[in-house]
């Protein structure tokens, strides 16, 4: 989600709440003989407000499970998730008097900080990366289908090269057809460089991984081949470009969604431990 003008109302509301909470905390801290306490009425109020913000932020996941329910627009939920989740950090810091406290509260505070920071990081990525992806990955596909598309690209490339060079039998090179003199450079280049590059997603090929270097290599290959094979070279070049984009998409996707590996599980743990903290705070 891009953070644009549509967030203005949420931003202003969050700033007002933050300002009011800060003012209350400053006055309260200055007037408390023993310093602020999370167990006092004001301290508890901060804790409850912060917890409610966290619970609302956590409900986004539940909301996504029932997209057809008429519970407000998904964008509104996401904005609430962003801003109230962010607001929960200062409110909980006020509740905890900027101390980590004991074992459980320390864990809670660390979890909250990691969750909020990872959320900010994720929000920044979600804001900046989609336009970058649109520009740099015009061949973008569904992330889960990348491996399938790559397999199709490999099959397409194999088919094209075999149409020119004859059956290459990549599994058993001993039985492979010996290419003619005209097609030999294409055959060798494909077998040595292109196919491993397409076959294994982690295969490192500094030349083919770089668009400019790859263009130079393919240009050199054309000079070794008759003009009738130049179309195949062009197609291979396109397939390599698509492979590069899919690799880039995979990389970007890991950035774009990798933070959720931290954010979501830790959020759930935070809510669970937060409940335990609230119950035991009633006791002690």
């Amino acid at each position, binding site marked *: 989600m891009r953070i644009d003008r549509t967030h203005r109302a949420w931003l202003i509301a969050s700033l007002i709440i933050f300002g009011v909470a800060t003012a209350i905390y400053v006055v309260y801290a200055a007037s408390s003989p023993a310093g602020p306490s999370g167990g006092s009425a004001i301290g508890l109020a901060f804790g409850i407000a912060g917890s409610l913000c966290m619970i609302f932020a956590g409900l986004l996941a539940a909301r996504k499970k029932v997209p057809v329910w008429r519970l407000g627009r998904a964008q509104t939920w996401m904005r609430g998730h962003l801003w109230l989740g962010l607001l929960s950090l200062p409110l909980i810091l006020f509740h905890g008097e900027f101390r980590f406290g004991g074992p459980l509260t320390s864990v809670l505070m660390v979890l909250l900080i990691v969750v909020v920071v990872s959320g900010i990081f994720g929000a920044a990525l979600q804001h900046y990366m989609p336009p970058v992806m649109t520009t740099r990955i015009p061949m973008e596909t569904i992330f889960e289908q990348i491996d399938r598309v790559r397999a199709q690209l490999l099959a397409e490339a194999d088919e094209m090269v075999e149409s020119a060079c004859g059956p290459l039998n990549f599994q058993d090179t001993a039985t492979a057809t010996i290419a003619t003199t005209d097609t030999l450079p294409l055959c060798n280049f494909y077998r040595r460089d292109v196919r491993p590059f397409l076959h294994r997603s982690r295969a490192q090929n500094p030349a083919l991984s770089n668009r400019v270097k790859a263009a130079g290599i393919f240009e050199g290959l054309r000079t070794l081949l008759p003009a009738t094979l130049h179309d195949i070279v062009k197609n291979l070049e396109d397939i390599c470009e698509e492979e590069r984009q899919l690799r880039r998409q995979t990389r970007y996707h890991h950035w774009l969604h990798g933070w959720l590996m931290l954010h979501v599980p*830790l959020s759930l*743990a935070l809510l669970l*431990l937060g409940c335990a903290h609230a119950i035991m705070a009633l006791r002690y």
Partner: protein
Amino acid sequence: MARAKLTTKKLAQRIDLGYFKHPHPFRRLRFILSVALPVIALLWLGWYALARNDRIYSGGRMSASHAVLSARCSTCHVAQAGAFSARASDQGCDTCHDAPVHHANQMFTPTCAACHTEHRGHPRLAVTADISCTECHANLHTSGAATHFVSDITRFNGGHPEFAALRPGSVDPGTIKLNHAIHLKHNLRGPNGPVQLDCDDCHRTVRPESRWRFGSSDAHDQPVNLNLRAIPPSMDAGRAYMSPVTYAKHCAACHGLQFDPRFQEGAPHDTPEVIRAFLVQKFQQYIPGHPAELRVTDLNRNLPQQPIPSAVRVLTEQQWVMLRVAESEELLYRKTCAQCHALLFVANAPWPIVAKSDITQRWFQHAVFNHDTHKLLKCVECHSGALTSQETADVLLPGIQTCEKCHRGGREAAESRCFECHTYHDWNREKGVKGSFPLSASSRDN
């Protein structure tokens, strides 16, 4: 053979339309983590619950003095029968501590935790915030008669009145005539030649190794007899306060109490009754060995131009003793004792009335001061008046501005909060606490 153009339709045909039915490993991993982490959190809580250990719910580290109780939550958090709540209350504190009330006329009594906040790490619990004091003392009201204390104290720097002993009209109530300026002069006549007295020769805190330079050989430090109000039990009053000035420790070597040339020994520094008995005994012991001295020659000075005839009398031993005692007392009370003591001669009284010395042992009756922690300073840095003081009535305490030179607040200055000098509890009223904790107190028991 040109490659077919990748239209939207062709791109769509690449996709397995049922792909969402099989979660990608990326999503699967996220799901696994989303289940695993809360489960780990539950196991963590469960582990402590099974071990009946609530320490993980602690609000923070215990103070240094209570650290030994970190594993015994129930010592302070006493659960009432049938109640879930086990909040710490004053009752828990009173089990071990007898913290006397501050003042009988205070408007309210705060809870222990209002000033001494636990679970905040290792700082001393006695380190309380100024607001704990200024909550009342910034605008002091009492439940009884109007207070005679300053009623608008807000802080030490700039919000605290001058010390009571230095306010206009205050004098040193002591009656011993002491001229500090003379005693600090160069080449003062000492018992074995000229000396230069130092403050330390008369004013020291009580230390076991103390040897007084100008005291008598049998002078020993005596316990400091102080009004213990406002002195916390943790404070070593002996090291904090100056040893009381006494004749035996500080004056005897120079100011001897010789009473008669027949004796090297001086009179005891004691009451007139004791001195009288001492003198009588001394002369009674002396005269049997010197019977010739019973012959007393009276000189007739009525005819100054004539040779002086002498009349010889023979006294009884009793008469001789009484005569010598009278002469010795005259010397002592008119000269030797009067040099330092204020004596009141009453007609027909056997001896003068000696005014009580009334040397102030502790000037700050409502605050504590620790000389030991200030020992790195030169005495005259604070007590500069001692160099020029000639009168006993001079109060040589430093003013509040002297204290503020160091105790001015801020990170690079000495402590200036109220607790540094004042204690809330009236430790004079402290009752004893009977210890009840076994050595195994640090073991886990919730």
